[in-house]
């Protein structure tokens, strides 16, 4: 649901701002506008829930719990992604 008035957020903006929201880095006004969008948009509400769940699960992960081969693969993948972004 991305047709919004100038005062309303659109879905793309919600996705961009979700980290600020979860970190409590918004003003009350910004937070209210953000939540106003969530109230009527099931898609963005689901996205927020997924982000919250991801953070919860990732926060429980210990370095020693990751298989060394998986760890090496992830590091390689991240380096490749970072190089691609740098062009």
């Amino acid at each position, binding site marked *: *649901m991305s*047709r*919004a*008035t100038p*005062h309303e957020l659109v879905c793309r903006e919600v996705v961009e701002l979700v980290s600020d929201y979860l970190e409590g880095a918004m*003003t*009350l*006004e910004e*937070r*209210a*506008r953000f*939540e*106003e969008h*969530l*109230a*009527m*948009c*099931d898609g963005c*509400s689901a996205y*927020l*829930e997924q982000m*919250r769940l991801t953070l919860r699960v990732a926060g429980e992960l210990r370095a020693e719990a990751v298989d060394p081969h998986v760890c090496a693969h992830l590091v390689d993948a991240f380096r490749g992604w970072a190089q691609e972004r740098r062009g």
Partner: protein
Amino acid sequence: MTAFTFTRRGARCPFTDRVWPVEGGWLADARATSAEHLPVWIAKELWRVELGGQISTPAEQTVAEHGRLLERVETWDRAAAEEFVADCRRRTLTLAARRPGDLRLKPMADDARGCTTAASANLAGWLAARTARVLDGEDGRAAERARQAAWLRARLGV
């Protein structure tokens, strides 16, 4: 002061995933709404709440240092939500019919036709308000939200 708050099932906050204490305990950083902004925050359950500490009203929300549930508004149930959806769907289609050739209105009318269940109550209200804004600007949007709030207050007896 007293106000209202909409929650998910089980008094769970729609945005923060926190649960309001149902035994009268206080919840910090409480989000609520005045009666005039009820339609903006529609969700599964409606509660009357008491707010305390510092209170502010950013946008159309009421935020308090702490708040607690007083009672559930039992008149906000599936039947009431479905009636609200039907009312807002009719409203959107009636408004959109004022300018049949306006391509900005067609998506709203199409979405409104798809609002048929209680779960789409918030969206149905938003679509009617958005349609009114396209036609009559911010005054139109505000008037439509005020109409919806009056409808809810009358239907729910709050």
